[in-house]
């Protein structure tokens, strides 16, 4: 594109700009008169982005400017001194001007000058910092990220004042250019990792991202896996501890979720609570989470295989009870289990989409009406309802929502394998999952390694949380 230089004459500039911005009804032109120099100024900005109180102050300052005798200053010096706090750069072409206006900046042109000033009078539209909704903790910081990258980075900088915390920003996207920030501790994160992350981001630079979730899918190691290979979080404390472990954090303007890479499976099963509570409680909860993960995937499968393949493995009394509850049920255990598991998944999905007050009604309908009625109508056995309830509850204990989703989906695989091959099939599926997990990598780090590979912590941290040791400074 050919660049056209700004006119000296204010009227000409205004005419020219108006013709360029013909279609845009939200562009505002405001003239200001600077009496001391008998000149006019012109502000151009997009209506919705303007921080009016700040704008008013500058307008007041300019219109009240008087030429002091004794030390007369030029009009450039005057304007510069009045706008120095918000001035970003000077421009001299219309194309640049056009670009800056839609970036939310305010332009100031002065009659008789061939340069325009770019002022940052943008007022960001953000919500307030609030408690993260997806990762609640009982004890620990209650602050969560918001949609503003600037504020989020400010938050991280506030807690970590170390000069070696590097924040690298770049614009990505084609239609909507968004800021993407790469954050890491220099010296902690390995060169190889930083290089790898940069390469992957460079590869998808042209994509428009509305959320880090979209970026995650494009830069992960493999798409053919139910497991998330990059951890996401709304919690600054999680981000900070990831940074200290030498991991890289990626954030995008407009998304409250930060990505942390690389990730291991054990990390996804750790909650910040573990470290804030006493170690016994932390360890207990962590073991409980591993257990519930197993239950959520395999309990329905084990039920199916025990009931229709290996009833000899049940205690005699339990076998009788199960046979009793199943006596009038018309479906084989597999169909019964599929019906109930699908119903509960539907209820969960419906509960998320509906507004909060109705969501509770859905829970009631699901729990009481469907559960109770299905049993009384002999469509499913009462034991199946209990099992579905247990698998559902246990799936909620996974701290990372996206990780829990993976296991919810895998449950159906386990059920199919059990229905076809009995306990042998359940075992086979277990081996399959383990096999897949041990093959999986996250930024070329093995996903299944039971330790925090980068930090000083050992494998002991994977299953239980041992008492903290006093440590020296983390950065050398």
């Amino acid at each position, binding site marked *: 594109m050919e660049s056209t230089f700004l006119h000296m004459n204010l009227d000409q500039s205004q005419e020219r700009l108006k013709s360029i911005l013909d279609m845009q009804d939200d562009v505002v032109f405001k003239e200001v008169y600077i009496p001391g120099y008998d000149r006019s100024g012109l502000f151009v900005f997009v209506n919705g982005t303007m921080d009016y109180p700040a704008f008013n102050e500058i307008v007041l300052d300019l219109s009240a400017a008087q030429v002091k005798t004794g030390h007369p200053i030029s009009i450039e010096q005057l304007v510069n001194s009045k706008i120095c706090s918000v001035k970003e750069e000077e421009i001299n072409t219309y194309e640049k001007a056009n670009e800056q206006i839609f970036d939310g900046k305010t332009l100031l042109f002065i009659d008789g000058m061939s340069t325009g000033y770019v002022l940052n009078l943008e007022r960001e539209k953000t919500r307030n910092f609030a408690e993260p909704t997806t990762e609640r903790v009982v004890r620990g910081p209650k602050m969560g990220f918001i949609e503003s990258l600037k504020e989020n980075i400010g938050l991280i900088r506030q807690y970590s004042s170390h000069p070696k915390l590097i924040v690298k920003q770049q614009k990505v996207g084609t239609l909507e250019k968004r800021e993407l920030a790469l954050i890491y501790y220099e010296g902690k994160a390995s060169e190889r990792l930083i290089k790898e992350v940069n390469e992957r981001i460079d590869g998808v630079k042209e994509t428009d991202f509305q959320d880090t979730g979209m970026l995650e899918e494009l830069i992960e190691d493999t798409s053919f896996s139910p497991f998330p290979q990059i951890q996401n979080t709304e919690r600054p404390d999680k981000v900070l501890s990831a940074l200290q472990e030498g991991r890289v954090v990626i954030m995008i303007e407009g998304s409250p979720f930060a990505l942390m890479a690389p990730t291991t499976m054990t990390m996804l099963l750790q909650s910040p609570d573990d470290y804030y509570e006493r170690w016994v409680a932390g360890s207990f909860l962590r073991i409980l989470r591993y257990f519930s993960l197993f239950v959520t995937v395999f309990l329905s499968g084990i039920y199916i295989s025990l009931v*229709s*393949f290996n009833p*000899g493995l049940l205690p005699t009394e339990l076998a009788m009870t199960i046979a009793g509850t199943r006596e009038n049920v018309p479906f084989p255990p597999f169909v019964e289990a599929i019906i109930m598991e699908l119903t509960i998944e539907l209820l969960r999905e419906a509960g998320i989409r509906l507004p909060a007050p109705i969501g509770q009604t859905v829970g009631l309908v699901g729990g009481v009406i469907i559960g109770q009625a299905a049993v009384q109508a002999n469509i499913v056995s009462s034991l199946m309802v209990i099992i579905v309830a247990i698998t559902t509850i246990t799936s909620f204990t996974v701290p990372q929502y996206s990780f829990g989703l993976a296991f919810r989906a895998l449950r159906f695989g386990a059920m199919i394998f059990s229905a076809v091959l009995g306990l042998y*099939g359940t075992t086979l599926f277990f081996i399959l999952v383990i096999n897949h997990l041990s093959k999986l990598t996250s930024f070329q780090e093995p996903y299944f390694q039971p330790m925090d590979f980068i930090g000083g912590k050992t494998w002991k941290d994977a299953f239980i949380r041992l008492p903290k040791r006093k440590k020296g400074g983390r950065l050398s």
Partner: protein
Amino acid sequence: MKRLWMLLLIPLLSGCWDSENIEELSLVVGVGIDLSKNKNEIMLTQQILVPPGYSLQENQAKLKYKNVTVSAKTLHEAIRDSLLLTNTVLTNHQRILLINEEVLRKIPMEAIINQSIRDNNTRRSCFVFLTKRPTKDILERADDGEIPSNVIYELKDNVKRTNKILPPLTLGQASSSLQSDGSFAIQAVEIKGGKLILQGAGVINNSKLVGLMNNKDIESLNWLNGSVKGGIIETTHHGTPFSVEVDKRKRRKIVTELHGNHLTIDISVGYTARLSEDWYGKENSYKESYLKEAERDAEDKVKQDVEKIVGKLQHQYKTGVAGLFRYVQNQHPKFWEEDKEKWDEIFSDADINYHIDLEIIDFGSKGGIK
């Protein structure tokens, strides 16, 4: 991706060939074996659990089991014949195997339990009992709502509290005993006053039933073995009865000595016990000498009983039911290798010295000082 789908479809080819829903199976808890009226046939009674059903209120009086009786030449054939009457039989949960005396008099025990042992569904931990009455009757006898097999199965747990029950004999133990020495005792089940009761025992030698024992004999045999786990020693002192409850076994030492072909067995056991009942009005339990005296009385009682049973074993049954052969086998392997065929004779001629050391460590929450 295409290949992956193919792979995932492979398991479906097999179908669910082993699938058999639990409510369509007959869960066998107890099996009884009798002689059939037909010649050369045995009668098999299978006790099958019936699920309680969903609406409990309606069928509360309903029995929770049914017995299926069929006759055939072999057991497996009988089991298969029972499928004409009931659902597929699942013997994984079988808890007891009852064998009628008549059967064991006629057919070797090894043959009787052969099918159960071979079949890998029936557990080796299933317990074997002997019955005087037809097993069919035993398996039908129970109080309302109780399952006879379960009643018998649970009674055997009382071995910790009484010494009138033989240590339970599992199918696996029976099989291995039949393989090695071939003589052991087997607990019997009876009906008394309309109730199931563990009473008496049978002596099996070389797969045949050679004799019967009463409860007293069982008790004495348990003492001889040192397999007493609890129970009471009941005797008298100062002309009044008193009883001592066995607490814990402290030691058991069995030494065998050979002089030529003559075997001497020294059995020495030590138990702690408590004085649990004493009718003597002038008791003085706080005095050690009083307790020592009681200990001696109880020891004498046990020794007398043991002597009686040893006499009975050596002269009446002429077989070493007590499992003492294992000690000979371990302590004199060479002798055992050569003469194990003659074990019954050797045992019958052996000198058995029995020594018991009882220590009363407790006299409960009441004692006198008169």
